[in-house]
């Protein structure tokens, strides 16, 4: 597969490409057309991905298969996909949601075609072999990747390529979950972190288009088949609240275990990375020997639980086993997402709570299936931390309005409990483990107006660490500044202040003067000009290095106090 070499960073060339089409000044219209195209292509790709995984799985696990197969297949699947991920597709590792966010906030929306193919192939292998992960997260990265590639190939400006990433993500999720509205909400709530994003129009278009493609090929079957449930008694709301607590605790256990295991696996020698996924495959295989329902994403069994047909003991056992198996599979580096397993865990917890309630109060409680249904949303809200998406998603999956109120109650309880006991959301925590600093939702809210990337000086020179004090003093006099960035070869070593120059010995070099160990004041290209000013005030500097979110020492440019004030039409005080 040829690697995509068109980079969004080459902005001068991409701007010129569109002139002949007449779209040069009308990229917005082109975005609308492309969102439809992306909806079609992503829909077709995700349908192919789902069907391919399903057919492959059917061949790996023929009816009445032997128990040894349940150990061998996931182990071999993890080995093969682990090697492919290590050797050829390192960008395709993991669920796909954090990777999509990295691409959006750090890489200017860049996801390579190679990563898209890698994700498709590796996830097909690992999911079909029975690894206890889901297909929805990977679909999001595949969709976002396709959107990114299409945007670049059409020569869009980097900001418009970025704008297409949530478009592709929504299209993918709409097809993968058969939930077009929830897909739009997820793109805004989780990927963009802004429910008022201007991209909503294109996101809706692509989501609807992709959903239509799905229906064209796979018909109008919902992901889960749920009987019509209703609230038997108002007292049931109290039981749904209990379910919210149980779901919240289960979610926290899942997230904490996953994050701890990820830290543990990351500490292992680098040379073992290719074989680490086997740990997940082997564990799920051994568990699957005795309890086959743990294998794969387990939607068939969820469907059964939603029908109210599952014994309490089995429900509890499956909830616990899945809470262990999925984090091991994910943390060991297998390709696959956590959406599907979240729903599975939620259904089991909900079914268990419902079974107990029905046992104690048979006359005033609904079938346990109703609780399993609400439980799915509860775990999703607790683990993924998108309460609005989870409510709408379960509603869309089941098309049952009666379930909305109990769903909202237990989802919010689970969400707040999870927030209280596990402060950092799972995707942000995973990003931090990777050394990536994604903008928080608060930061994203502040990012309106002029951005640092628009006003930074990309070619500003750094002072070399080997430079002498005299040279630095002369530079400060020339530039008329009180601080400057020290570093070389595009890597920031630290910040130099005028006070440090004054205090230093004349023969000293800058590397001896600056503090290279601690974190220096900095901003990222997507920060607002206002945030940069605030950081200058806090750091007592008049220059800030603009660094990558993926690597805090990788310099992208510099912003000066003078430059920022000029943006606001203010001269620097003399």
């Amino acid at each position: 597969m040829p690697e995509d070499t068109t980079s969004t960073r080459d902005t001068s060339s991409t701007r010129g490409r569109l002139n002949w089409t007449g779209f040069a000044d009308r990229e917005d219209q082109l975005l609308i057309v492309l969102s439809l195209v992306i909806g079609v292509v992503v829909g077709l790709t995700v349908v192919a991905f789902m069907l391919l995984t399903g057919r492959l799985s059917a061949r790996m696990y023929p009816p009445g298969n032997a128990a040894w197969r349940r150990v061998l297949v996931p182990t071999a699947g993890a080995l093969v996909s682990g090697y492919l991920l290590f050797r050829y597709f390192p960008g395709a590792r993991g669920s796909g949601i954090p990777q999509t966010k990295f691409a959006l906030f750090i890489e200017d929306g860049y996801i390579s075609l190679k990563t898209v193919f890698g994700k498709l192939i590796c996830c097909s292998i690992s999911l079909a072999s029975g690894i206890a992960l889901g297909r929805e997260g990977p679909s999001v990265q595949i969709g976002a990747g396709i959107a990114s590639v299409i945007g670049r190939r059409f020569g869009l400006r980097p900001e418009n390529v970025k704008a297409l990433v949530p478009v592709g993500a929504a299209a993918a999720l709409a097809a993968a979950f058969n939930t077009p509205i929830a897909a739009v909400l997820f793109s805004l709530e989780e990927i963009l972190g802004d429910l008022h994003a201007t991209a909503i129009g294109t996101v809706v278009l692509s989501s609807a288009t992709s959903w239509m493609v799905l229906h064209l090929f796979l018909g109008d079957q919902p992901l889960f088949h749920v009987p019509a449930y209703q609230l038997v008694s108002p007292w049931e709301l109290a039981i749904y609240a209990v379910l919210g607590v149980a779901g919240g605790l289960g979610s926290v256990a899942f997230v904490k275990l996953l994050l701890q295991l990820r830290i543990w696996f990351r500490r292992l020698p680098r040379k073992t990375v290719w074989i680490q996924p086997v740990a997940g495959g082997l564990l799920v295989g051994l568990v699957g020997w005795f309890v086959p329902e743990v294998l794969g994403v387990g939607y068939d069994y969820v469907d059964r639980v939603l029908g109210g047909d599952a014994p309490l003991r089995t429900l509890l056992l499956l909830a616990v086993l899945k809470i262990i198996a999925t984090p091991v599979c994910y943390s060991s580096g297998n390709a696959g997402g956590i959406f599907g397993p979240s729903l599975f865990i939620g259904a089991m917890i909900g079914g268990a709570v419902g079974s107990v309630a029905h046992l104690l109060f048979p006359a005033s409680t609904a079938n346990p299936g109703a609780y399993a249904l609400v439980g799915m949303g509860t775990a999703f809200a607790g683990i993924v931390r998108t309460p609005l998406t989870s409510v709408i998603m379960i509603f869309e999956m089941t098309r049952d309005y009666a379930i909305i109120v109990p769903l909202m109650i237990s989802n919010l309880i689970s969400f707040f409990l999870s927030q209280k006991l596990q402060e950092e959301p799972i995707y942000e925590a995973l990003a931090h483990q990777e050394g990536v600093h994604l903008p928080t939702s608060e930061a994203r809210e502040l990012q309106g107006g002029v951005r640092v990337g628009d006003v930074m000086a990309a070619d500003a020179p750094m002072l070399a660490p080997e430079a002498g004090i005299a040279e630095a003093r002369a530079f400060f006099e020339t530039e008329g500044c009180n601080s400057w960035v020290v570093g070389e070869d595009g890597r920031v070593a630290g910040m130099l202040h005028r006070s440090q120059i004054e205090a230093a010995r004349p023969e000293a070099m800058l590397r001896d003067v600056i503090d290279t160990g601690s974190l220096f004041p900095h901003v990222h290209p997507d920060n607002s000009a206002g945030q940069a000013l605030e950081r200058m005030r806090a750091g007592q500097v008049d220059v800030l290095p603009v660094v990558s979110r993926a690597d805090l020492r990788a310099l992208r440019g510099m912003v000066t106090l003078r430059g920022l004030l000029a943006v606001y039409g203010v001269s620097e005080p003399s």
Partner: protein
Amino acid sequence: MISRRQAVVRTTVVLVVTAGGLAALDKFLAKTESGEMQRAASANYAMGTRLLAEGKATAAVEPLRQAWVLARDNAGYELALGNALAATGKTAEAEMRITAALSREPNDGEANLAAARLRVREKGAGEADSFYHRAIFGHWGADGAAQRVAARLELIELLARQNRRGEMLGELISLEEEAGEDRAVRKKLARYFLQAGSPARAANVYRQLVEKDRLDGESYAGLGEAELESGRYREARSAFIRAAMHSPEMPIRAQLELVDMLTEVDPTPRQLTSAEKYRRSSRILEWVRGDLRQQADARPEKSSAEIEDLLQRADAALTGKTPAAVSNEAAEGLLSLAEQLWRARVQAFGEAVPADQEAFRRILEKLAA
């Protein structure tokens, strides 16, 4: 070096070709999946229905469930699963499956029949009737007429079990029109007519049957039973003899003996002389007096002054001198008294009699009717 225009055109062409290729791949994969799932569902359904037919309902549930999961659009699979679940006692889940099938097609005959059967299991007979009627008048696929007849027969069987003779008769009259020339159905129809207390209609159906097949011993036996119930003992005897002739293996000896006895004691035939009628009436009164005495002695707590009075009147009538020239009125007087004794006997001690005295019971029932 390609121009910018060429680059964009090339990207568009690549996109179109990719989308076309993906669409073809999706179609192929979807077709493959659909085919594989249909085959698997069909195999599971076959296994499930076989197990269900063998009475292994518990074992049938899993393959039937699998069949339905693989082909959810197939209402037949869903209904079969519902029936299997109902047979295993999982009525709540069975109801969900059957209700889902009904909500998709409320007029579906098979779904309504399944719902009726479920109501019967749940002892909701009233609701079962209405589902049976919806099944009878609902949509059926091929062989709809036979299915409707089978559904109505099932309803009749239910009514018979619940001894709801009036409603049963109404269904039987409708069935008579629908049954057509199917001999098996017509035989059932005649049998149920008999059970519903309409021996004349039963006899009529049996007569039609034997007219079309003069060698059908079973229908002759049925006709004999119907004539027997109608009190037409000579005709019954004739039918039983023909039955024995065409089907010697049929156990109708007891019926023949009964009918001979009835012919011997029946006081109602018009051609009887007054003396013979009086003699037969005396015999009947004597039997019922003896029977009532025996019952009263055995269970004195159930006896009463009225019974004792009736017994004394019977004693007086039987021990009195027989008139030289007996009239029909004298015979009728004895029969009237015998009838009163029988009513008292039934009221106090029930109507069960020993098998060898069945003839008297039948005669007295006939008189009391």
